[in-house]
Protein backbone atom coordinates (compact mmCIF):
# COMPACT_ATOMS: atom_id res chain seq x y z
CA UNK A 1 0.00 0.00 0.00
CA UNK A 2 1.18 3.51 -0.70
CA UNK A 3 2.09 5.60 2.25
CA UNK A 4 2.73 9.26 2.75
CA UNK A 5 5.89 10.49 4.24
CA UNK A 6 4.93 12.97 6.86
CA UNK A 7 6.50 14.05 10.05
CA UNK A 8 5.43 16.97 12.14
CA UNK A 9 8.92 18.27 12.01
CA UNK A 10 9.80 18.79 8.42
CA UNK A 11 9.32 17.52 4.92
CA UNK A 12 12.89 17.56 3.76
CA UNK A 13 16.24 19.11 4.39
CA UNK A 14 15.42 22.17 2.33
CA UNK A 15 12.40 22.79 4.49
CA UNK A 16 14.50 22.65 7.54
CA UNK A 17 17.26 24.76 6.13
CA UNK A 18 14.79 27.36 4.96
CA UNK A 19 13.09 27.46 8.29
CA UNK A 20 16.29 27.67 10.23
CA UNK A 21 17.55 30.47 8.07
CA UNK A 22 14.33 32.41 7.98
CA UNK A 23 13.90 32.06 11.72
CA UNK A 24 17.21 33.81 12.22
CA UNK A 25 15.55 37.17 12.19
CA UNK A 26 18.61 38.76 13.66
CA UNK A 27 21.49 40.69 12.25
CA UNK A 28 24.11 38.70 10.46
CA UNK A 29 26.64 38.74 13.26
CA UNK A 30 24.33 36.65 15.36
CA UNK A 31 24.21 33.88 12.84
CA UNK A 32 26.33 31.31 14.47
CA UNK A 33 27.50 28.01 13.18
CA UNK A 34 27.00 26.28 16.48
CA UNK A 35 23.42 27.51 16.67
CA UNK A 36 22.69 25.98 13.32
CA UNK A 37 24.46 22.76 14.20
CA UNK A 38 22.61 22.60 17.52
CA UNK A 39 19.31 23.12 15.78
CA UNK A 40 20.16 20.43 13.27
CA UNK A 41 21.07 18.01 16.04
CA UNK A 42 17.85 18.78 17.85
CA UNK A 43 15.92 17.98 14.68
CA UNK A 44 17.92 14.76 14.32
CA UNK A 45 16.88 13.72 17.80
CA UNK A 46 13.29 14.36 16.91
CA UNK A 47 13.59 12.33 13.73
CA UNK A 48 14.95 9.43 15.71
CA UNK A 49 12.12 9.67 18.19
CA UNK A 50 9.63 9.65 15.32
CA UNK A 51 11.43 6.71 13.79
CA UNK A 52 11.22 4.58 16.88
CA UNK A 53 7.49 4.93 17.06
CA UNK A 54 6.87 4.07 13.43
CA UNK A 55 6.35 0.92 11.44
CA UNK A 56 9.10 -0.21 9.15
CA UNK A 57 8.23 1.62 5.88
CA UNK A 58 8.21 4.94 7.69
CA UNK A 59 11.48 3.95 9.29
CA UNK A 60 13.13 3.61 5.96
CA UNK A 61 11.81 6.93 4.78
CA UNK A 62 12.86 8.72 7.93
CA UNK A 63 16.32 7.33 7.43
CA UNK A 64 16.26 8.67 3.90
CA UNK A 65 15.22 12.08 5.12
CA UNK A 66 17.83 12.03 7.83
CA UNK A 67 20.52 11.17 5.33
CA UNK A 68 19.54 13.86 2.89
CA UNK A 69 19.31 16.29 5.69
CA UNK A 70 22.81 15.39 6.80
CA UNK A 71 23.99 16.19 3.31
CA UNK A 72 22.52 19.66 3.41
CA UNK A 73 23.80 20.21 6.91
CA UNK A 74 27.24 19.18 5.78
CA UNK A 75 27.06 21.48 2.79
CA UNK A 76 26.20 24.40 4.97
CA UNK A 77 28.82 23.64 7.56
CA UNK A 78 31.38 23.16 4.83
CA UNK A 79 30.48 26.49 3.29
CA UNK A 80 30.85 28.27 6.55
CA UNK A 81 33.99 26.59 7.77
CA UNK A 82 35.73 27.21 4.50
CA UNK A 83 34.88 30.87 4.77
CA UNK A 84 36.05 30.98 8.36
CA UNK A 85 39.43 29.44 7.62
CA UNK A 86 42.02 32.25 7.65
CA UNK A 87 43.01 33.51 4.23
CA UNK A 88 43.76 30.14 2.74
CA UNK A 89 41.38 30.83 -0.08
CA UNK A 90 43.18 33.98 -1.08
CA UNK A 91 45.75 32.05 -3.02
CA UNK A 92 43.32 30.21 -5.22
CA UNK A 93 40.86 32.17 -7.27
CA UNK A 94 39.25 28.98 -8.56
CA UNK A 95 38.42 27.86 -5.06
CA UNK A 96 37.06 31.27 -4.29
CA UNK A 97 34.83 31.19 -7.36
CA UNK A 98 33.86 27.64 -6.54
CA UNK A 99 32.55 28.69 -3.19
CA UNK A 100 30.62 31.54 -4.73
CA UNK A 101 29.14 29.20 -7.27
CA UNK A 102 28.21 26.63 -4.67
CA UNK A 103 26.57 29.29 -2.57
CA UNK A 104 24.63 30.77 -5.46
CA UNK A 105 23.51 27.34 -6.49
CA UNK A 106 22.30 26.62 -2.99
CA UNK A 107 20.55 29.98 -2.87
CA UNK A 108 18.87 29.33 -6.21
CA UNK A 109 17.70 25.91 -5.10
CA UNK A 110 16.38 27.24 -1.84
CA UNK A 111 14.48 29.98 -3.65
CA UNK A 112 12.97 27.53 -6.12
CA UNK A 113 12.02 25.22 -3.29
CA UNK A 114 10.40 28.09 -1.41
CA UNK A 115 8.52 29.17 -4.53
CA UNK A 116 6.94 25.76 -4.96
CA UNK A 117 6.17 25.62 -1.27
CA UNK A 118 4.09 28.73 -1.80
CA UNK A 119 2.43 27.17 -4.83
CA UNK A 120 1.65 24.07 -2.77
CA UNK A 121 -0.08 26.20 -0.14
CA UNK A 122 -2.21 27.79 -2.86
CA UNK A 123 -2.95 24.33 -4.21
CA UNK A 124 -4.03 23.12 -0.80
CA UNK A 125 -6.47 26.03 -0.61
CA UNK A 126 -7.84 25.24 -4.05
CA UNK A 127 -8.19 21.56 -3.19
CA UNK A 128 -9.83 22.43 0.10
CA UNK A 129 -12.33 24.73 -1.56
CA UNK A 130 -13.08 22.13 -4.22
CA UNK A 131 -13.54 19.36 -1.67
CA UNK A 132 -16.94 20.65 -0.53
CA UNK A 133 -18.65 20.00 -3.83
CA UNK A 134 -19.30 16.34 -4.54
CA UNK A 135 -19.74 15.67 -8.25
CA UNK A 136 -22.65 13.73 -9.66
CA UNK A 137 -21.28 10.80 -11.61
CA UNK A 138 -24.28 8.54 -11.87
CA UNK A 139 -24.80 8.26 -15.59
CA UNK A 140 -27.99 7.73 -17.58
CA UNK A 141 -30.93 5.70 -16.27
CA UNK A 142 -30.96 2.09 -17.28
CA UNK A 143 -33.69 2.78 -19.84
CA UNK A 144 -31.11 4.63 -21.93
CA UNK A 145 -28.55 1.87 -21.55
CA UNK A 146 -29.58 0.05 -24.71
CA UNK A 147 -29.03 3.25 -26.68
CA UNK A 148 -25.46 3.67 -25.59
CA UNK A 149 -22.97 2.59 -28.24
CA UNK A 150 -21.75 -0.92 -27.56
CA UNK A 151 -18.23 -0.35 -26.38
CA UNK A 152 -17.38 -4.00 -26.87
CA UNK A 153 -18.28 -3.92 -30.54
CA UNK A 154 -15.59 -5.56 -32.63
CA UNK A 155 -13.82 -6.96 -29.58
CA UNK A 156 -13.09 -10.68 -29.44
CA UNK A 157 -12.49 -12.99 -26.54
CA UNK A 158 -8.85 -12.98 -27.54
CA UNK A 159 -8.76 -9.20 -27.15
CA UNK A 160 -9.88 -9.64 -23.55
CA UNK A 161 -7.21 -12.27 -22.88
CA UNK A 162 -4.54 -10.13 -24.44
CA UNK A 163 -5.66 -7.10 -22.46
CA UNK A 164 -5.45 -9.17 -19.29
CA UNK A 165 -1.94 -10.31 -20.13
CA UNK A 166 -0.97 -6.74 -20.95
CA UNK A 167 -2.35 -5.54 -17.64
CA UNK A 168 -0.70 -8.23 -15.58
CA UNK A 169 2.52 -8.67 -17.55
CA UNK A 170 5.57 -6.62 -16.68
CA UNK A 171 5.42 -3.24 -18.37
CA UNK A 172 8.12 -3.62 -21.04
CA UNK A 173 9.42 -0.06 -21.24
CA UNK A 174 9.77 0.44 -17.53
CA UNK A 175 11.33 -2.95 -16.96
CA UNK A 176 13.94 -2.64 -19.68
CA UNK A 177 14.81 0.71 -18.27
CA UNK A 178 15.32 -0.61 -14.79
CA UNK A 179 17.16 -3.62 -16.12
CA UNK A 180 19.80 -1.30 -17.39
CA UNK A 181 19.82 0.94 -14.40
CA UNK A 182 19.84 -1.67 -11.69
CA UNK A 183 23.37 -3.06 -12.16
CA UNK A 184 24.82 0.44 -12.29
CA UNK A 185 23.16 1.70 -9.18
CA UNK A 186 23.76 -1.45 -7.25
CA UNK A 187 27.34 -1.83 -8.33
CA UNK A 188 28.76 1.61 -7.61
CA UNK A 189 28.23 0.96 -3.95
CA UNK A 190 29.63 -2.55 -4.30
CA UNK A 191 32.60 -1.31 -6.29
CA UNK A 192 33.34 1.25 -3.60
CA UNK A 193 33.37 -1.41 -0.93
CA UNK A 194 35.63 -3.56 -3.07
CA UNK A 195 38.00 -0.65 -3.50
CA UNK A 196 37.93 0.18 0.18
CA UNK A 197 38.86 -3.42 0.79
CA UNK A 198 41.57 -3.49 -1.83
CA UNK A 199 43.19 -0.06 -1.89
CA UNK A 200 44.61 0.17 1.63
CA UNK A 201 46.57 -3.02 0.97
CA UNK A 202 47.83 -1.82 -2.41
CA UNK A 203 48.65 1.67 -1.20
CA UNK A 204 49.39 2.95 -4.66
CA UNK A 205 48.09 1.55 -7.91
CA UNK A 206 46.80 2.55 -11.33
CA UNK A 207 43.29 2.53 -12.68
CA UNK A 208 44.45 0.20 -15.47
CA UNK A 209 45.61 -2.34 -12.91
CA UNK A 210 42.38 -2.03 -10.96
CA UNK A 211 40.28 -2.77 -14.02
CA UNK A 212 42.58 -5.23 -15.77
CA UNK A 213 40.50 -8.27 -14.91
CA UNK A 214 37.16 -6.78 -15.86
CA UNK A 215 35.34 -7.97 -18.95
CA UNK A 216 32.31 -5.72 -19.37
CA UNK A 217 32.72 -2.07 -20.17
CA UNK A 218 29.96 -1.27 -17.73
CA UNK A 219 32.03 -2.76 -14.90
CA UNK A 220 34.90 -0.46 -15.81
CA UNK A 221 32.56 2.51 -15.88
CA UNK A 222 31.15 1.55 -12.50
CA UNK A 223 34.64 1.25 -11.02
CA UNK A 224 35.53 4.60 -12.44
CA UNK A 225 32.50 6.16 -10.78
CA UNK A 226 33.45 4.48 -7.52
CA UNK A 227 36.96 5.90 -7.80
CA UNK A 228 35.58 9.38 -8.40
CA UNK A 229 33.31 9.05 -5.43
CA UNK A 230 36.18 7.97 -3.17
CA UNK A 231 38.20 10.88 -4.45
CA UNK A 232 35.36 13.26 -3.76
CA UNK A 233 35.17 11.95 -0.22
CA UNK A 234 38.88 12.46 0.18
CA UNK A 235 39.95 8.87 0.65
CA UNK A 236 42.24 8.69 -2.33
CA UNK A 237 44.50 10.95 -4.35
CA UNK A 238 44.27 10.85 -8.11
CA UNK A 239 46.94 11.80 -10.59
CA UNK A 240 47.10 11.61 -14.34
CA UNK A 241 50.41 13.07 -15.51
CA UNK A 242 49.61 13.00 -19.20
CA UNK A 243 46.46 13.01 -21.22
CA UNK A 244 45.08 9.50 -21.78
CA UNK A 245 47.94 8.24 -19.60
CA UNK A 246 47.58 5.96 -16.61
CA UNK A 247 45.67 7.27 -13.67
CA UNK A 248 47.44 6.65 -10.38
CA UNK A 249 45.52 6.13 -7.20
CA UNK A 250 46.97 6.61 -3.75
CA UNK A 251 45.02 5.57 -0.69
CA UNK A 252 45.07 8.40 1.82
CA UNK A 253 42.03 7.53 3.88
CA UNK A 254 41.44 5.56 7.00
CA UNK A 255 39.70 2.29 6.29
CA UNK A 256 38.18 2.31 9.75
CA UNK A 257 36.19 5.40 8.93
CA UNK A 258 32.66 4.55 8.07
CA UNK A 259 31.83 5.73 4.61
CA UNK A 260 28.61 7.02 3.31
CA UNK A 261 28.79 5.41 -0.06
CA UNK A 262 26.13 7.51 -1.68
CA UNK A 263 27.25 11.02 -1.01
CA UNK A 264 24.28 12.32 -2.94
CA UNK A 265 25.03 10.21 -5.98
CA UNK A 266 21.82 9.35 -7.74
CA UNK A 267 21.57 7.75 -11.11
CA UNK A 268 17.85 7.91 -11.25
CA UNK A 269 16.69 8.79 -14.71
Amino acid sequence: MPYDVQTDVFEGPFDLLLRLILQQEVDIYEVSLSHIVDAYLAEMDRIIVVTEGESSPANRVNLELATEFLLIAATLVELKTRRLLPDEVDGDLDDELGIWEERDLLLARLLECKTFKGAAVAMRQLAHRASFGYPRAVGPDEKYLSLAPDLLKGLSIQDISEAFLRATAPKPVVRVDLGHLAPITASVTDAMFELIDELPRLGKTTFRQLTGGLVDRIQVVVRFLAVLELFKQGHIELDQPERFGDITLVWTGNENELLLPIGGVSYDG
Partner: protein
Amino acid sequence: MTAEDDAEVFQVLAAQLENEGSLSTPSPSDSELHELDPNVVPADVRAALEAILLVASDPVAPTVLAQLLEVSVETVDALCEYLTDSYAQEERGFTINRVAGGYRYQTSDAQAPYVERFVLEGQATRLSAAALETLAIVAYKQPVSRAQISSIRGVNVDSVARTLQQRGYIEEVGRDSGPGNAAMYGTTTRFLERIGLDSLRDLPNLSDFVPDAEVVETLEVVLRGASEAAEFRDTDGSAPDLSSPT
Protein backbone atom coordinates in the same frame (compact mmCIF):
# COMPACT_ATOMS: atom_id res chain seq x y z
CA MET B 1 -40.38 37.30 -19.60
CA THR B 2 -43.05 39.88 -19.25
CA ALA B 3 -44.99 41.18 -16.32
CA GLU B 4 -48.07 39.50 -17.84
CA ASP B 5 -46.35 36.12 -17.59
CA ASP B 6 -45.55 36.82 -14.00
CA ALA B 7 -49.09 37.80 -13.35
CA GLU B 8 -50.22 34.47 -14.73
CA VAL B 9 -47.76 32.57 -12.56
CA PHE B 10 -48.99 34.51 -9.62
CA GLN B 11 -52.61 33.67 -10.37
CA VAL B 12 -51.73 30.00 -10.32
CA LEU B 13 -49.90 30.34 -7.07
CA ALA B 14 -52.61 32.37 -5.47
CA ALA B 15 -55.21 29.82 -6.51
CA GLN B 16 -53.11 27.02 -5.16
CA LEU B 17 -52.67 28.91 -1.96
CA GLU B 18 -56.36 29.27 -1.44
CA ASN B 19 -57.19 25.73 -2.35
CA GLU B 20 -54.42 23.90 -0.58
CA GLY B 21 -53.16 26.31 2.00
CA SER B 22 -49.65 25.04 1.33
CA LEU B 23 -47.96 28.33 0.54
CA SER B 24 -47.29 29.29 4.06
CA THR B 25 -44.64 31.88 3.40
CA PRO B 26 -45.14 34.38 6.17
CA SER B 27 -43.74 37.53 4.57
CA PRO B 28 -42.44 38.85 1.26
CA SER B 29 -38.86 38.69 2.51
CA ASP B 30 -38.99 34.93 2.67
CA SER B 31 -36.87 33.48 -0.07
CA GLU B 32 -39.33 30.94 -1.37
CA LEU B 33 -42.90 31.18 -2.36
CA HIS B 34 -43.15 27.42 -2.68
CA GLU B 35 -41.91 26.50 0.70
CA LEU B 36 -42.88 23.71 2.96
CA ASP B 37 -43.99 24.98 6.26
CA PRO B 38 -40.71 26.40 7.52
CA ASN B 39 -41.67 25.52 11.05
CA VAL B 40 -41.65 21.89 10.08
CA VAL B 41 -38.84 21.57 7.58
CA PRO B 42 -35.98 24.06 7.47
CA ALA B 43 -34.71 25.02 4.01
CA ASP B 44 -31.33 23.43 4.65
CA VAL B 45 -32.91 20.02 5.18
CA ARG B 46 -34.52 20.32 1.77
CA ALA B 47 -31.16 21.34 0.26
CA ALA B 48 -29.42 18.47 2.05
CA LEU B 49 -31.94 16.03 0.61
CA GLU B 50 -31.24 17.38 -2.87
CA ALA B 51 -27.48 17.09 -2.32
CA ILE B 52 -27.62 13.50 -1.09
CA LEU B 53 -29.87 12.36 -3.91
CA LEU B 54 -27.62 14.13 -6.42
CA VAL B 55 -24.56 12.08 -5.55
CA ALA B 56 -26.34 8.78 -4.91
CA SER B 57 -25.73 6.23 -7.64
CA ASP B 58 -28.57 3.99 -6.46
CA PRO B 59 -32.04 4.85 -5.15
CA VAL B 60 -31.81 5.93 -1.51
CA ALA B 61 -34.31 4.40 0.91
CA PRO B 62 -36.50 6.91 2.77
CA THR B 63 -35.37 5.41 6.06
CA VAL B 64 -31.73 6.15 5.17
CA LEU B 65 -32.63 9.70 4.18
CA ALA B 66 -34.62 10.17 7.36
CA GLN B 67 -31.66 9.08 9.43
CA LEU B 68 -29.17 11.30 7.59
CA LEU B 69 -31.44 14.34 7.70
CA GLU B 70 -32.65 13.65 11.24
CA VAL B 71 -36.31 13.94 10.30
CA SER B 72 -39.15 11.44 10.12
CA VAL B 73 -39.74 9.15 7.14
CA GLU B 74 -43.03 10.99 6.61
CA THR B 75 -41.18 14.27 6.28
CA VAL B 76 -38.80 12.70 3.76
CA ASP B 77 -41.73 11.45 1.71
CA ALA B 78 -43.49 14.82 1.90
CA LEU B 79 -40.29 16.63 1.01
CA CYS B 80 -39.66 14.43 -2.03
CA GLU B 81 -43.21 14.88 -3.18
CA TYR B 82 -42.93 18.61 -2.73
CA LEU B 83 -39.67 18.72 -4.69
CA THR B 84 -41.09 16.60 -7.49
CA ASP B 85 -44.03 19.00 -7.77
CA SER B 86 -41.88 22.09 -7.70
CA TYR B 87 -39.44 20.74 -10.30
CA ALA B 88 -42.39 20.00 -12.56
CA GLN B 89 -43.76 23.47 -12.01
CA GLU B 90 -40.39 25.03 -12.75
CA GLU B 91 -40.08 22.85 -15.85
CA ARG B 92 -36.79 21.45 -14.68
CA GLY B 93 -34.96 18.89 -16.78
CA PHE B 94 -35.00 16.48 -13.86
CA THR B 95 -37.35 15.01 -11.34
CA ILE B 96 -37.22 12.86 -8.23
CA ASN B 97 -38.60 9.39 -8.74
CA ARG B 98 -39.46 6.64 -6.34
CA VAL B 99 -38.04 3.39 -7.66
CA ALA B 100 -36.89 0.13 -6.13
CA GLY B 101 -37.73 1.23 -2.64
CA GLY B 102 -35.93 4.53 -2.77
CA TYR B 103 -35.69 7.99 -4.24
CA ARG B 104 -33.40 9.10 -7.01
CA TYR B 105 -32.96 11.86 -9.55
CA GLN B 106 -33.98 11.08 -13.08
CA THR B 107 -34.27 13.14 -16.19
CA SER B 108 -37.79 14.32 -16.93
CA ASP B 109 -39.55 12.45 -19.69
CA ALA B 110 -39.92 15.56 -21.81
CA GLN B 111 -36.14 15.71 -22.15
CA ALA B 112 -35.74 12.13 -23.31
CA PRO B 113 -34.79 13.06 -26.91
CA TYR B 114 -31.90 15.20 -25.66
CA VAL B 115 -30.74 12.57 -23.23
CA GLU B 116 -30.88 9.98 -26.00
CA ARG B 117 -28.77 12.19 -28.23
CA PHE B 118 -26.27 12.68 -25.48
CA VAL B 119 -26.07 8.97 -24.74
CA LEU B 120 -25.66 8.25 -28.45
CA GLU B 121 -23.35 11.03 -29.48
CA GLY B 122 -21.94 12.79 -26.46
CA GLN B 123 -19.81 9.98 -25.13
CA ALA B 124 -16.95 7.78 -26.12
CA THR B 125 -17.82 5.03 -28.59
CA ARG B 126 -14.82 2.82 -27.94
CA LEU B 127 -13.31 1.35 -24.83
CA SER B 128 -10.09 3.05 -23.89
CA ALA B 129 -7.05 0.82 -23.44
CA ALA B 130 -7.31 1.46 -19.71
CA ALA B 131 -10.97 0.42 -19.66
CA LEU B 132 -10.28 -2.73 -21.69
CA GLU B 133 -7.51 -3.78 -19.32
CA THR B 134 -9.72 -3.13 -16.33
CA LEU B 135 -12.55 -5.13 -17.87
CA ALA B 136 -10.15 -7.99 -18.63
CA ILE B 137 -8.91 -8.04 -15.04
CA VAL B 138 -12.48 -8.18 -13.74
CA ALA B 139 -13.29 -10.96 -16.20
CA TYR B 140 -10.40 -13.14 -15.10
CA LYS B 141 -10.08 -12.27 -11.43
CA GLN B 142 -13.68 -11.81 -10.34
CA PRO B 143 -14.75 -11.13 -7.70
CA VAL B 144 -12.22 -8.34 -7.45
CA SER B 145 -12.20 -4.95 -5.72
CA ARG B 146 -11.25 -1.65 -7.33
CA ALA B 147 -8.25 -1.45 -5.02
CA GLN B 148 -7.05 -4.81 -6.26
CA ILE B 149 -7.45 -3.74 -9.88
CA SER B 150 -5.60 -0.52 -9.09
CA SER B 151 -2.72 -2.40 -7.59
CA ILE B 152 -2.47 -4.63 -10.67
CA ARG B 153 -2.67 -1.73 -13.10
CA GLY B 154 -0.67 0.68 -10.97
CA VAL B 155 -3.15 3.51 -11.48
CA ASN B 156 -6.44 4.58 -10.02
CA VAL B 157 -9.30 2.81 -11.81
CA ASP B 158 -12.31 4.44 -10.12
CA SER B 159 -13.56 6.39 -13.10
CA VAL B 160 -12.89 3.59 -15.56
CA ALA B 161 -14.70 1.10 -13.33
CA ARG B 162 -17.60 3.53 -13.03
CA THR B 163 -17.90 3.77 -16.81
CA LEU B 164 -17.84 -0.02 -17.15
CA GLN B 165 -20.46 -0.31 -14.45
CA GLN B 166 -22.69 2.34 -16.03
CA ARG B 167 -22.46 0.60 -19.37
CA GLY B 168 -23.53 -2.60 -17.70
CA TYR B 169 -20.40 -4.62 -18.37
CA ILE B 170 -19.43 -5.08 -14.74
CA GLU B 171 -21.46 -5.01 -11.56
CA GLU B 172 -21.08 -5.18 -7.83
CA VAL B 173 -21.32 -8.84 -6.89
CA GLY B 174 -20.69 -8.58 -3.18
CA ARG B 175 -18.70 -6.97 -0.42
CA ASP B 176 -15.31 -7.94 0.88
CA SER B 177 -15.54 -9.39 4.36
CA GLY B 178 -12.33 -7.63 5.38
CA PRO B 179 -12.01 -4.15 6.84
CA GLY B 180 -13.65 -1.44 4.76
CA ASN B 181 -16.06 -3.89 3.12
CA ALA B 182 -14.81 -3.00 -0.32
CA ALA B 183 -17.25 -3.59 -3.16
CA MET B 184 -16.30 -6.64 -5.22
CA TYR B 185 -16.94 -6.59 -8.94
CA GLY B 186 -17.75 -9.21 -11.53
CA THR B 187 -18.78 -9.19 -15.16
CA THR B 188 -22.44 -9.14 -16.19
CA THR B 189 -24.46 -11.36 -18.50
CA ARG B 190 -24.54 -8.35 -20.80
CA PHE B 191 -20.77 -8.62 -21.02
CA LEU B 192 -20.99 -12.33 -21.87
CA GLU B 193 -23.62 -11.63 -24.53
CA ARG B 194 -21.71 -8.82 -26.13
CA ILE B 195 -18.42 -10.63 -26.21
CA GLY B 196 -20.08 -13.81 -27.44
CA LEU B 197 -19.43 -16.17 -24.54
CA ASP B 198 -21.77 -18.75 -23.09
CA SER B 199 -20.13 -18.67 -19.71
CA LEU B 200 -17.03 -17.42 -17.99
CA ARG B 201 -15.60 -20.92 -18.24
CA ASP B 202 -15.25 -20.28 -21.96
CA LEU B 203 -12.72 -17.53 -21.41
CA PRO B 204 -9.43 -18.73 -22.89
CA ASN B 205 -7.25 -20.48 -20.37
CA LEU B 206 -4.28 -18.23 -20.00
CA SER B 207 -1.76 -21.07 -19.79
CA ASP B 208 -2.86 -22.03 -23.31
CA PHE B 209 -2.17 -18.60 -24.49
CA VAL B 210 1.07 -18.37 -26.40
CA PRO B 211 2.47 -14.88 -26.48
CA ASP B 212 3.76 -13.74 -29.84
CA ALA B 213 7.46 -13.36 -30.56
CA GLU B 214 7.60 -9.72 -29.59
CA VAL B 215 6.18 -10.36 -26.15
CA VAL B 216 8.56 -13.25 -25.57
CA GLU B 217 11.48 -11.08 -26.51
CA THR B 218 10.39 -8.29 -24.23
CA LEU B 219 10.00 -10.74 -21.39
CA GLU B 220 13.44 -12.13 -22.00
CA VAL B 221 15.02 -8.72 -21.91
CA VAL B 222 13.19 -8.06 -18.71
CA LEU B 223 14.12 -11.30 -17.05
CA ARG B 224 17.74 -10.91 -17.99
CA GLY B 225 17.96 -7.33 -16.88
CA ALA B 226 15.95 -7.25 -13.74
CA SER B 227 15.82 -10.58 -12.00
CA GLU B 228 16.32 -8.79 -8.70
CA ALA B 229 13.58 -6.40 -9.60
CA ALA B 230 11.27 -9.34 -10.17
CA GLU B 231 11.81 -10.55 -6.63
CA PHE B 232 11.01 -7.13 -5.36
CA ARG B 233 7.79 -7.02 -7.37
CA ASP B 234 6.63 -10.29 -6.03
CA THR B 235 6.70 -9.07 -2.51
CA ASP B 236 4.67 -5.93 -2.85
CA GLY B 237 3.22 -6.01 -6.32
CA SER B 238 4.56 -2.62 -7.27
CA ALA B 239 7.30 -1.50 -9.57
CA PRO B 240 10.75 -1.80 -8.06
CA ASP B 241 12.40 1.27 -6.76
CA LEU B 242 16.02 1.06 -7.72
CA SER B 243 16.61 4.69 -8.26
CA SER B 244 18.88 5.23 -5.34
CA PRO B 245 21.69 2.89 -4.44
CA THR B 246 20.96 2.75 -0.74
